[in-house]
């Protein structure tokens, strides 16, 4: 009986952890996406340097999340996001005009991680 109780408890604990993880990823990606949105606003107001430093700060924030992301996320997803950050930074530091699409693409990629983890009928099946 003890073994069954431990198994049921473990199953519930894992369910709770899984649900907590969904919320955690949502919060974290929301923070990162907000940082990129703020950078976008700064860029639209003509503050190129401010936007670049905001994106860099957000990139550092993302990279500091590495130990968690490497355990919980597919490595291909991590590479895509890191690549999108560097691409945006390169655009901001270059001479060419940066389009809103670059900011939106990074925000979309970040939201995608949370979306994939969100428990919906579609994602389950």
């Amino acid at each position, binding site marked *: 009986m003890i073994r069954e109780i431990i*198994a049921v408890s473990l199953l519930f604990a*894992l369910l709770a*952890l899984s649900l907590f993880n969904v919320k955690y990823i949502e919060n974290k990606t929301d923070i990162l996406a907000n940082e990129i949105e703020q950078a976008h606003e700064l860029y639209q107001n003509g503050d190129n340097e401010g936007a670049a430093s905001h994106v860099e700060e957000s990139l550092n924030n993302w990279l500091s999340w590495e130990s968690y992301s490497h355990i919980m996320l*597919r490595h291909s997803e991590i590479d895509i996001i890191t690549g999108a950050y560097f691409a945006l930074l390169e655009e901001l530091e270059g001479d060419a005009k940066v389009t809103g699409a670059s900011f939106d693409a990074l925000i979309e990629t970040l939201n995608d991680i949370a979306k994939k983890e969100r428990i919906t009928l579609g994602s389950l099946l």
Partner: protein
Amino acid sequence: MGIVYLRTLIIYVALIFAMRLMGKRQLGEIELSELVITVLISDIAAHPLQDIGIPLMNGILPIVILLCCELIISGVIVKSNLAKELICGKPCFIIVNGVIDQKEMRKNRLTPDELAEELRGQSVLDISMIKYAILETDGRLNIVLFPSERPVTAGQMSIAADDSGYPVVIINNGQVVRKNLQICGKDERWLQKELSARKVSDPKEVFLMSVNNAGQIYFAKAEGKK
């Protein structure tokens, strides 16, 4: 992580259901839930090993969930007959009084060839000798012969049968099993004496040596040793 958790549960229940529908002959002497666990774990564990891009957690989490499910299900099966019947099914009588129940055969996807093969495996060639053939929940076919076809026992013949007891291995592939030596109440001196009687000086020259309660010794010298 949440998706992995729920997907694992869905796949587990779906596989149990599918295997249950397939019939008992798909099983190989393990219970249905154990087979499902075996099939799933071997596959799940392989993915993170083959693809280092997949986090190990995606392999470990389903395995822990499946183990918990298996523990819970096996616990429920022990406690509830109804649950056991629902999850593992119940034994089926394939032959009753020498007559094959064809409906049960079809239900369990058992062909006459397979039945004949199972019977041959148990040295039964004539179906009319069989009182009952029962397909157990783990897929084994157990046979009960008509009393007139069963081998005569010493008890029925009123003969006193020798009980030589359980043979204990004393030397296993050249290694003396000292614990077993103690269990059967012998010592190293006795062993040396027995080895000398068989012209062996070192236990390493022995492949297998066992002794039963009656003191009868089975001795096999290792091939290729002097």
